[in-house]
């Protein structure tokens, strides 16, 4: 087992940062059971992989895109993952669109939503909680989404 939080704190202290990141603790998150069976549910993806790297990182905000506009390769260089051990050459490893489409075609999943959603990795909990998450929630409601899979990188 790796104690990720302790290791991350030590890593950034070694970089000279004096204040540890404060991880969000959502202790009162309610459990929401799916209202529909998977065979009639509409599903979407939420990713931290970057769709528009031309937008400077400090001002990136949540944004929704049509699945048909999903890039063949997202920009994953700026987000933190173990770049020594693994890679993101295979989009399916972090954005399983083909696998979802196959299940929809087979009738295992009701439908794919028209849009997926980008959410930036942020130091600010306020940005995520008060700006990005509500926007994605709104777009999911507009698209009549039943299930959203968050795949953070």
């Amino acid at each position: 087992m790796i104690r990720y939080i302790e290791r991350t704190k030590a890593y950034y202290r070694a970089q000279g940062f004096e204040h540890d990141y404060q991880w969000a603790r959502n202790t009162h998150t309610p459990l929401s059971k799916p209202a529909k069976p998977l065979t009639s549910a509409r599903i979407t993806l939420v990713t931290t992989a970057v769709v528009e790297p031309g937008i400077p990182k400090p001002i990136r905000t949540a944004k929704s895109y049509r699945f048909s506009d999903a890039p063949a390769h997202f920009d994953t260089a700026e987000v933190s993952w173990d770049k020594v051990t693994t890679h993101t050459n295979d989009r399916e490893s972090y954005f399983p669109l083909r696998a979802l489409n196959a299940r929809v075609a087979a009738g295992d999943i009701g439908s794919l939503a028209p849009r997926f959603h980008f959410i930036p990795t942020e130091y600010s909990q306020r940005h995520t909680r008060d700006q990005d998450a509500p926007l994605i929630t709104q777009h999911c409601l507009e698209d009549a989404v039943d299930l959203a899979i968050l795949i953070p990188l």
Partner: protein
Amino acid sequence: MQNQTLEAALDLFYQAQNPGVVQQLPNRWSASEGWRDNFMAITALNRKQLLSLGDESRRQRQRNREQGLFRP
């Protein structure tokens, strides 16, 4: 492996009895467990480099602020 991971995620929507459930899958990153020691490792060899990375990051943040590149 990708199909199995997606299958497990879809099952979790319907099987989870509590929020915040973590389901461990049997998949391994690699046959070697060496990555565990190397991930975010701080060693005598990279201490200087890490500090230099931090300095550059702080300078970049300052430049961003000066250019108005921040979220309200």
